[in-house]
């Protein structure tokens, strides 16, 4: 294995991992506060990707302005969709049995995925990269795709932003308080329903952001939602549900692992997330950064 190959695969794996982190951190955050595993998170990400495709074909062209427009418009649009879903459906299943919650979110997967099929059809699509990100950059004498490097840096930016929001703002204090004792938070005068809705919207915003970034990274089709929800689920199991740091670690493990095993193992690389997930569940069922259930 040459050093060039190693660097190339590492950059590729890191960018895959960071994209996965952006999506999985949303899933993890929502679970932390709402205690619902939203399997429709992948579908929301897919809608984000297809929405990005539609808008980009409307404004036609791969200018930086158009790409920024997508980043500015699509994630909030998915957050608004999340708002509608939260107040109309999710709100009804908090504190219900897991089975009911699973039924709701899985039904949403089926409905949303079919809606995507009806609206956008089954053909693979993509969004042109803006020129400034379309070429390659020279790192260690290797020509690496600029866009992958861009995503690789987006991950830490989002991670830092989330950390800052959760640990340095009042909104973050309220979110973290709602994770432990929602009733107590309510008795202190905080409208906890609103904290939950906002957190859900933030999670959906992250899914939408992942969708835009994905649409310019590779071809998007009807399978991307399912693929990412499975990987995201593995990520939160590995890192610990509700932990942002854990989501970062889990995403890097899955991203690098899948990338490195792709060449020698081909399709068998797909079992990698499951194997890691199973090992973590045996050794530390609450994940690297999670806490055992009280």
């Amino acid at each position, binding site marked *: 294995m040459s050093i060039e190959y190693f660097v190339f695969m590492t950059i590729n794996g890191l960018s895959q991992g960071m994209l996965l982190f952006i999506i999985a951190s949303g899933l993890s955050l929502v679970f932390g506060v709402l205690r619902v595993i939203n399997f429709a998170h992948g579908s929301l990400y897919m809608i984000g990707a297809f929405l990005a495709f539609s808008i980009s074909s409307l404004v036609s062209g791969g200018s930086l302005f158009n790409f920024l427009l997508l980043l500015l418009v699509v994630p909030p649009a998915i957050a608004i969709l999340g708002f509608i879903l939260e107040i109309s459906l999710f709100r009804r299943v908090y504190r219900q049995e897991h089975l009911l919650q699973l039924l709701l979110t899985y039904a949403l997967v089926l409905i949303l995925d079919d809606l995507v099929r009806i609206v956008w059809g089954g053909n693979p699509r993509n969004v042109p990269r803006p020129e400034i990100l379309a070429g390659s950059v020279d790192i260690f004498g290797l020509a690496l795709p600029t866009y992958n490097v861009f995503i690789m840096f987006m991950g830490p930016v989002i991670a830092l932003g989330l950390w800052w929001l959760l640990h340095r703002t*009042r909104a973050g*204090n309220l979110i973290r*308080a709602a*994770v*432990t004792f929602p*009733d107590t938070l309510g*008795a*202190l*005068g905080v409208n906890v329903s609103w904290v939950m809705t906002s957190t859900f919207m933030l999670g959906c915003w992250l899914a939408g952001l992942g969708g835009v970034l994905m649409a310019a990274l590779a071809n998007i089709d009807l399978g991307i939602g399912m693929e990412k929800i499975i990987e995201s689920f593995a990520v939160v199991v590995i890192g610990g549900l509700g932990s942002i740091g854990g989501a970062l670690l889990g995403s890097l493990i899955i991203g690098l692992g899948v990338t490195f095993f792709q060449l020698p193992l081909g399709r068998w690389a797909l079992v990698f997330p499951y194997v890691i997930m199973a090992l973590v569940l045996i050794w530390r069922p609450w994940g690297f950064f999670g806490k055992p259930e009280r």
Partner: protein
Amino acid sequence: MRLVVDQINTYYGLSHILFDVSLDVAQGEVVVLLGRNGAGKTTTMRSIMGLTPSQTGSVTFKDCDITKWPPYKIARLGIGFVPEDRRIFPDLTVKANLDVGRKGKHIKWTYERIYKFFPKLEEMANRPGGDLSGGEQQMLTISRALMGNPDLILLDEPSEGLAPLVVKTLGDFIDVMKQEGMTVLLSEQNVKFALAHSDRAYIIDNGQIKYHGLIEELEKDEEVKKRYLAVTDHAIPTNCQP
């Protein structure tokens, strides 16, 4: 600004916990609700706060019928709640715990004032709330409720599990709150502590109010104290012992 609890009946699922409980607290009073474990003190507090709303009867505060209000609206109307199990947010710093209790602008209780009363909280301001000792956690819970500038504060068994010296600090602070013109409803098992800091007392037993009166009257009433508050009452019959 008066709290009136009028004949409330509260259930946990199918079990009937409170039976026609009535009590009232006037502005500036410190009133204690005395009773043994499981007598219904916490349920009374939770019913007032809207955490386990009563099925019948009413709770009125500042002339508003708050019986079926959600807890956050009751809190915003001016009631602060200090739960029995304290419920400090363990992952949040001490300062963040206080911040969570803040409702908009600081009017009366600020970080500076809280830190003046409890210097330990300032020392530990950037440490996780879970690192505090039991006594420090109790001070933090009270301070967290005060950050919302309540007119009435509900203290559910604040002295429980605290060292005697901490209980004294707590008692002094209750006196401070009274001087500030705050209204306090306290629930206690520690009779001596409760009587030293309150104006009036109610006694609850088996979910019913059995007695109410001024502290001076209760102190003289050995019969009532013995019947409802003595711990040694329930001797286990010898034939029941294994």
